[in-house]
């Protein structure tokens, strides 16, 4: 009898009818906290997609022109690597081709940020402890975070479906659902990462790295074959999005893949969440040294940022090698068509298709490196707002010295990862290594300019600092999507990357890089001057 009673008690605890208790309240809290962040992400991504039909219609107004461009795009494997294959030559088909991969990637970034923010971030800051002391089930925080991501992705799917319905409801729904599906796969992947890591920074890094790998897999697969049937493409959720074939005979069963992957990852995350202590991970903390050798603010900054720099460096080396590997086939163009060449030139390259491809890849690495530099500069912001900077600055450390340690890693680190990306690209391509390296390094002034804006914003006010992410995001959008939209030159010129010489292949013009370097230096100087004058954030 006692045994039965005990079993019954355990059964109640394990079955946990209230393991999701409090999910609704936590979801409201999450949406309240993200009331700016989610609408902004969803709005920008949707706007990006919804502006495509008009823009593409302007560039290719007739059906014949669209069929022509679709054929050329499909034949060029370097363009397939960047945007995926073209499956339909309707306006909708071109929109899905041009926007699909990137909406997927952006929805993925949004989702992983939302999920980590409401799971590991909450635990790391200690806020979860207080919440979990209330009527909150063990699984509720995870459920609330995933639901918040679901709300965001559903809103995105709705906007895309409604906005593109004019091109065909089925295709619009497929693109919307595929985007949301990619987002949810990333959300659940981030949920797993948030369970196994102890720091939110690392969880975001892991999930972001996974997303990067998805992109590279798809790029490699698409460069090899022109119908999205490569195994590599099918291994990547971003590849599933294109294989949904929105506006080109939708293959609805592909949606099952998103559901299965998201469901599986969610199950893993839930399994882990139920088996772990709040605030802890699965790896026991190892003891550290009883005495330390850190003695300067610079050494501390290096210690704090070296892991992240190592991760970025390895990622760039791998991505560069993958891009270099697919460059070899870049010149396999059906015919030597004037319009294709023109389009490639619009993408950022110049004559010589291989050179243009390498230049495009170097530019892409550069724009991603802008994210690194922003993240690294904003380490200052994180240190300041977490109150860890306070005791350091209360010691004999000047603000400039404190900031300089982190900025050295941000700006020097950008050079290191671009060098590694260039080495990977050159090694993968197997030729012209110095030219490829040069193409990567010439991106640095533009990367530094974005970093300079981050320094300035942080210097002006701690509240303005996160705006640097917006700047980096805008630069990415302008670089990837801007040229195809036929935006006015004045808008495109806002991105520092637009001013760089197109290498390899183009002429090395020294004025723009030098001018940008000077601009970056003055931005940093202004930012540091402002930092030296303002109050420190006090929490």
């Amino acid at each position: 009898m006692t045994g039965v009673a005990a079993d019954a008690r355990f059964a109640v605890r394990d079955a946990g009818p209230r393991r999701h208790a409090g999910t609704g309240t936590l979801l409201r809290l999450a949406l309240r906290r993200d009331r700016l962040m989610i609408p902004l992400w969803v709005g920008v991504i949707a706007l990006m997609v919804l502006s495509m039909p008009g823009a593409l219609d302007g560039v290719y107004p007739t059906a014949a022109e669209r069929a022509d461009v679709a054929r050329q795009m499909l034949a060029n494997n370097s363009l397939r690597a960047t945007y995926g294959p073209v499956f339909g030559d309707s306006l909708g088909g071109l929109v899905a081709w041009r926007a699909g991969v990137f909406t997927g990637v952006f929805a993925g970034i949004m989702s992983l940020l939302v999920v980590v923010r409401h799971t590991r971030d909450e635990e790391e800051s200690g806020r979860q402890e207080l919440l979990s002391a209330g009527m909150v089930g063990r699984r509720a925080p995870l459920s609330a975070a995933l639901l918040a991501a679901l709300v965001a992705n559903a809103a995105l799917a709705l906007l895309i479906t409604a906005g593109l319905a004019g091109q065909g409801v089925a295709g619009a729904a497929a693109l919307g659902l595929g985007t949301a599906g990619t987002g949810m796969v990333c959300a659940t992947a981030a949920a797993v990462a948030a369970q196994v890591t102890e720091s939110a920074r690392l969880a975001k890094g892991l999930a972001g790295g996974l997303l990067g790998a998805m992109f590279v897999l798809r790029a490699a697969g698409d460069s090899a074959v022109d119908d999205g049937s490569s195994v590599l493409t099918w291994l990547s959720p971003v590849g599933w999005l294109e294989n949904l074939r929105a506006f080109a005979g939708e293959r609805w069963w592909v949606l099952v893949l998103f559901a299965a992957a998201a469901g599986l990852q969610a199950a893993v995350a839930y399994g882990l969440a139920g088996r772990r202590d709040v605030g802890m991970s699965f790896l026991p903390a190892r003891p550290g040294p009883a005495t330390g050798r850190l003695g300067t603010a610079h050494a501390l900054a290096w210690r704090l940022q070296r892991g992240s720099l190592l991760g970025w460096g390895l990622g760039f080396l791998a991505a560069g090698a993958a891009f270099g590997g697919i460059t070899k086939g870049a010149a396999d163009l059906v015919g030597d068509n004037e319009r294709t060449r023109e389009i490639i030139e619009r993408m950022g390259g110049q004559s010589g298709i291989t050179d243009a491809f390498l230049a495009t890849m170097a530019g892409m690495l550069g724009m991603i490196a802008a994210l690194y530099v922003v993240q690294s500069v904003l380490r200052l912001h994180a240190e300041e707002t977490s109150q860890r900077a306070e005791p350091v600055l209360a010691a004999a450390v000047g603000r400039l010295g404190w900031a300089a340690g982190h900025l050295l890693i941000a700006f020097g680190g950008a050079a290191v990862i671009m060098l590694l990306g260039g080495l990977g690209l050159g090694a993968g391509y197997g030729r012209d290594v110095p030219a490829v390296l040069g193409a990567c390094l010439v991106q640095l002034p533009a990367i530094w300019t974005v970093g300079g804006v981050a320094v300035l914003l942080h210097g002006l006010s701690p509240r303005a600092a996160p705006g640097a992410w917006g700047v980096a995001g805008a630069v990415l959008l302008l670089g990837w999507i801007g040229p195809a939209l036929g935006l006015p030159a004045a808008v495109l010129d806002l991105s520092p990357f637009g001013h760089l010489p197109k290498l390899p292949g183009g002429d090395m013009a020294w004025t723009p890089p030098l001018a940008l370097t000077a601009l970056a230096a003055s931005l940093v100087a202004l930012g540091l001057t402002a930092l030296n004058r303002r109050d420190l954030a006090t929490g």
Partner: protein
Amino acid sequence: MTQAITVAGLRKSFGTTHALDGLDLEVEPGEVHGFLGPNGSGKSTTIRVLLGLLRADAGAVRMLGRDPWADAVELHRRVAYVPGDVTLWRNLSGGEVIDLYGRLRGGLDAARRAELVERFELDPTKKGRTYSKGNRQKVALVAAFASDVDLLILDEPTSGLDPLMEAVFRRCVAEERDRGRTVLLSSHILSEVEELCDRVSIIRGGRTVESGSLADLRHLTRTSVTAELSGPPDGLALLPGVHHLEVRGNRVGLQVESDRLNAVLRSLTESGVRTLTSTPPTLEELFLRHYQDGTGTPEVAR
């Protein structure tokens, strides 16, 4: 000899909230100075101005004879600071952080560091994320007490310590005083302040409302007297400065302003005293009076 800290008419606003509204503070070299005030009265804001982390809007601020904003780095060689809420880097061990803070100040006395780690029963090999609040505070305290500095600024440093560690802390502060160092101690633990501090400043709503030695401050408040008399008391109620008079038969309980005590005693002895207890005002009573008296100034956050 210059004052360790001189603050006169200090003002600091954050947007529309006035955190400090004409605050004055004088800390003499070699003293332990208690810095008291209700939550949100501006103690931490004052300390951050002293550390050059916030810039004063108005008023004169000198620390060790220098300007804390302009000469921050030079000053900080001679100053150790312990915040009330210590945040550590998750992947650095406590020992590494102690040594880092020490090197970032004037330097660390290795023997004293080892002794303090022992006394505070701190495990320096644990990583930042695994320390409890009290242990994080110990990390900052060991770094501060082992640093070779002239001035210690401690902002509610014992809020997470257990009573044993609190006793260790008090001995450490006493040792610092014996070594001639100056300590500014912000605290809510009144027994701690009573035991350690030579002088105190009480602030409220960003302003200094009381400042002086504990003896001076006590003088301003009331003494509690209870007595058992041979006969019924006579005329006590008419004496100036007597409050809360309670008479039950021959027993008397009352509070009297400290400078009127003499007249009360005279009146009591006239009735014949059998037993007499007189309690000087505790800091707590002093404190409650300042904390509770509505002065009409709304308290401001921070």
